[in-house]
């Protein structure tokens, strides 16, 4: 499986993104970590270029609603609307449903166990391969 882990927006807190990237690569995935301050367009382009099976966004600034929406829109525009988007970070419980209703596949607020995050990525990968 190929996964893009991305830091959209201006937020520089990358501890979570790096931990997830490493856990996924320990689980056998090929992980492309984008580094900081990626625009939604850049992230979508990376997903297309790398032919990724899933993309994880890490956002701790509070701008997760709009940034996720924009990444989803850019993926659609660039023809990768079927790639599942998973979002993690400092996300208040009340925003989880909003994110999911907007098309985010899974939401992992801070404190989510690594095993759950890894399992979700692997599950989406399997689903994509069987459909």
């Amino acid at each position, binding site marked *: 499986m190929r996964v893009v882990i991305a830091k959209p*927006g*201006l*937020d*520089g*807190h*990358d*501890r979570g993104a*790096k*931990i997830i*990237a*490493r*856990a996924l*690569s320990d689980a056998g995935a090929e*992980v492309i*970590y*984008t*580094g*900081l*301050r990626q*625009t939604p367009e850049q992230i979508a382009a990376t997903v297309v270029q790398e032919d990724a099976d899933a993309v994880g966004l890490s956002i701790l*600034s*509070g*701008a997760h609603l*709009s*940034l996720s929406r924009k990444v989803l829109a850019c993926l659609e525009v660039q023809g990768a609307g079927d790639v599942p988007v998973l979002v993690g970070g*400092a996300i*208040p*419980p*009340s925003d989880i449903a909003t994110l999911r209703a907007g098309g985010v596949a899974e939401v992992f*607020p*801070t*404190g989510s*166990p*690594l*095993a759950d995050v890894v399992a979700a990525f692997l599950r989406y990968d399997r689903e994509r391969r069987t459909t």
Partner: protein
Amino acid sequence: MSEKRGLTTPSGIPRKAFYGPSDWNAAAYAEQLGDPGAYPYTRGVRADGYRGKLWTMRQYSGFGTAEESNERYRFLLERGQTGLSVALDLPTQLGYDSDDPRAEEEVGRVGVAVDTLEDMERLFEGIRLDEITTSFTINATAAVLLAMYVAVARRQGADLKRISGTIQNDILKEYVSRGTWIFPVEPSLRMIVDTIEFCAKEVPRFNAISVAGAHFRDAGATAVQELAFTIADGITYVERCMARGMDVDEFASNISFFFYTHSDFFEEIAKYRAGRRIWARLMRERFGAKDPRSWAFRFGLVCGGSTLRAEEPMNNAIRVAYETMASVLGGASSIFTAAWDEPFAIPTEESAQLALRTQQILAYETGVPDVADPLGGSFYVEALTNATEEETLRLIADIEERGGMVPCVETGYIQQLIANEAYQRQRRQEAGEEIIVGVNRFRTDGVARQLQLFSLDEASAHRQIERLRAVKERRDEDGVRAALDELRSAAFGTENLMYPLIAAVEAYCTLGEICGVLRGVFGEFREPIVV
């Protein structure tokens, strides 16, 4: 239940069941400890501890527009906060104006938006800058914010020799963690030396830099790594100032430090005591400082951060209280206690007040601050202080063998050490080897309670953009262009940038325009991708 709890500190220093006279050489008292206020300051930088002056209670806050933040500052000051700590939004930290497309959705979100001098004036409306000390968590754009602060102080008629405060201004750690870098290493260091030189000359009571380990720590570093990386950064800044030809005693007292206090109580206390001793000796023996003020390792700190958890979030208030006590026993000069709801959002008035009360109860009800360094001479604390010092010096030597912090940051070496530690730590926590109450032990699976969280007034970004437009319409465009041209040629040269920066902010050039000029001259840092 039998478990192998506590056989080492989280930094890996072995920990015995008890300590005795053989663990500490009391005969080395004068050399290793000294009384509080005496070299090498292991026991604190002040002879009377907190008797003469308590630590500064400085809650990091700011959001939305300058007015909204000003209101929160007054709220905190009315409740007994003794210093201000300004949180700035990400566009301000990264040199983008509020109307920049890259700033969309981020304006006023994690801090207050400052685009022009007018915002800085409104931020301190009704607050005299010569009566309060202010700390700014600002790095890549620190010189610009300092220029604005100085300009506001002048307009208030304050004596620059009397105003005091801190800009974080520590770019090296931004490349490693936290991530608000703009320019490459060399021009960034030049601007830092410019600010230190400027403060030493013009605003002598201002801390031109707060060398911060806190963000290494929250990114995953151990206490020992936090201390070692911070001191190694401090060495770099001192060397750069001396290379400019400054005398060490001219600027050393403008340097302060900033840390995270995490949960291991005695390890944190030992970290601060070891830090004071290491820095005092470095300044005196290696850099030849003669003024005792130059030897003093003064630091602020924050309690909370990554030790706070989203599960059973009220537990965070208890964690912060213990961390605060360790901080006071460690001799902090200023403390920020994070609110229990930090894992979710910036604090509400209610949670911010509880966080401040945590410090005040410790200060006024417990008697803890009444005696300087009350743990001095404890077999355990002294042994742990010595071990922490030893490990820290070993790590600093490793960094220096690799050419010092600059190459270690540019190649991603420090980033890798921290990422390794963060990953291992996560695994230990998830395996239950490191216990977190209510998370991996005694976990409750009850329904999450309805939290009353802060939410930003979404209209405030619009108000900020409108205000910026109004300033641009009012200002003298010729003056703006002239000031920016002046800044550009100064940036190409070697003169101190603080003077043209002050002229630029006084002409109401925006932060984005100023940083645009500097980006044009200096370029941008390229991040090494390390996982």
